């Protein structure tokens, strides 16, 4: 097993009465790309700031390579940070921005020129050395910020929502590039984001956070397919939740009397309250009654080109979200009655 590079042990950070990070334990492993994913206010940025040293924990320890760095100021931690706002120095040229960390490390001038050149080549910004940050596009500025954070070969790269300020197209482009660069350099990376698609696409592991705690830590597929909590199921992939009671080992009666077969790889305890989650893209429109097919009425729909997102109301009033791939097999309209197939293997049992 890879050894931990960054470790947080029981880290808590309070702002007055607010506990932004709550007794957090986390180990970031050598060379991995770990995402801290969660809604705003979940503590992900505070966690990043704790690692960087911008804020100190009110309790707990922070270790880098097994060495306790709690209380050590950020400039002595030797980490690389990329900020959402880029935070490029407006009074310095691109070259001087990238050279900043090298100058602080008293690298000789000749070596600085060489390494800045290499770093700018890595982010495909050759020839921009003499320009000011304000003369570059947002995407280019973010690449300068990345080069600046990588040029002195830091132990860990910390990324604070680096793609959030870019428009959609550019964001996707930068995402791929970011991953390629991280792989090429092989640097241990902590990535803060509220965007689940980014986290799923980039990460080796994801820590889903809420309320200053980690709800679930795992590889993207595990997080998506086997959410450990209702929050994770809902936050990643916007699942539909259905409450019911286990009628047998693999049969759940949902309120309203419909019995649904579930295949979750384990036998349910008969009579137990069960919470089921199902992804909107796993629900299908059915043409005929059958196993795991329920009647519903279309409540609302949003046409999105490649698919139509609709909300359907079951007989007992519970709502199911469905993504129907376009072109839809039948015309869809609010108030229309449809049959939904909820495949047994699409269910996830929460808790």
């Amino acid at each position, binding site marked *: 097993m890879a050894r931990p590079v960054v470790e947080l042990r029981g880290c808590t950070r309070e702002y007055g009465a607010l506990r932004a990070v709550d007794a957090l334990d986390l180990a970031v492993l050598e060379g991995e790309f770990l995402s801290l994913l969660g809604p705003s206010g979940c503590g992900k940025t505070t966690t990043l700031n704790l690692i*960087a040293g911008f804020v100190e924990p009110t309790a707990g320890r922070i270790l880098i390579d097994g060495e306790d760095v709690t209380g050590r*100021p950020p*400039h002595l931690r030797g980490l690389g940070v990329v900020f959402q706002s880029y935070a490029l120095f407006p009074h310095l040229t691109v070259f001087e921005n990238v050279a900043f*960390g090298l100058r*602080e490390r008293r690298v000789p001038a000749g070596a600085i020129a060489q390494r800045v050149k290499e770093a700018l080549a890595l982010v495909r910004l050759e020839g921009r050395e003499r320009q000011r940050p304000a003369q570059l596009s947002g995407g280019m500025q973010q690449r300068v910020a990345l080069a600046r*954070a990588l040029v*002195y070969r830091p132990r860990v790269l910390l990324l604070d929502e680096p793609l959030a300020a870019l428009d959609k197209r550019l964001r996707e482009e930068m995402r791929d590039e970011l991953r390629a660069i991280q792989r090429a350099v092989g640097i241990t990376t902590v990535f803060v984001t509220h965007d689940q698609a980014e986290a799923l696409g980039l990460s080796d592991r994801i820590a889903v956070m809420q309320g200053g705690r980690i709800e679930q830590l795992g590889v993207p597929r595990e997080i998506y397919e086997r959410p450990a909590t209702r929050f994770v199921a809902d936050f990643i992939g916007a699942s539909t939740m259905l409450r019911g009671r286990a009628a047998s080992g693999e049969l759940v009666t949902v309120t309203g009397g419909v019995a649904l077969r579930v295949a979750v790889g384990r036998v349910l305890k008969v009579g137990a309250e069960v919470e089921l989650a199902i992804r909107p893209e796993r629900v299908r429109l059915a043409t005929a009654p059958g196993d795991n097919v329920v009647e519903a009425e279309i409540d609302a729909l949003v046409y999105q080109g490649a698919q139509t997102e609709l909300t359907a109301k079951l007989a007992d009033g519970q709502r199911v979200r469905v993504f129907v791939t376009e072109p839809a097999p039948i015309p869809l309209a609010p108030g229309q009655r449809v049959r939904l197939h909820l495949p047994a293997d699409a269910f996830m049992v929460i808790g």
Partner: protein
Amino acid sequence: MRLRLAVLLLLAFMTLPTVVVIAVSFNPTAILSFPPAGFSWRWYVNVLTYPQFQRAAWNSLVVTGGAVLLALPIGTLAALALERARLRGRALWAAALLSPLVVPGVAAGLGFLILAAALGLLRSRIVLVVAHVALVLPFVVRSVWVSVRNLDPALERAAASLGASPRRIFFRVTLPLLRPGLFAALLFAVVVSVNEFVVSLFISNRVTEILPVAMFNYVVNYTDPTIAALSSLFIAATFLVIWLADRFLDLGRVFLQH
């Protein structure tokens, strides 16, 4: 058209005193009369050769130079503290720092006079320097504060993450980014200090008096156009400073960026 006329009238009204003073300064006769009876440089010669004016000019240079040199770092640190420090009663501190603006010059002058007398410093230019620091500080704090507010805190964090110590961050990032505010502060401080009269009148004597005070004393004793000539030089100098500042320091940006 009518608006244009109104603007022209307003401009004429505002610049009239200046025009009169400049016109009178070229008057060949020893009377302060308008319009001038002819053209002559003799009062300018008088200004530049009058020993008391030479001494006062030197005093002005020392007092303004000293005051600005002290007020800039003090004001900058004060502005940073007002914005950044965990300060109890921030509004009160700000009010205290800006208070010289609202204290009448006579009251301030009297206060400095009494203090200087108590400390036995009445014959020294130190009192003038100290008083001028207090008088220009509000302008310095104000100007720099605006720049401090515009500073993105992420920039200093970025510098720290890149390995810069707090001291290095201050000199490599914070100070360069405060430059517009510092230039504005410098400009204000110089203009305010050079033109300061009321307070300086209380705490100077024939040896330490600065130019505005010397001019006043001259007018009390003589009524020839020398004083108009000196005033014109003052106006020209101030114009030059502002023009240079606008030309090279992009004054418009300093004032309009917020």
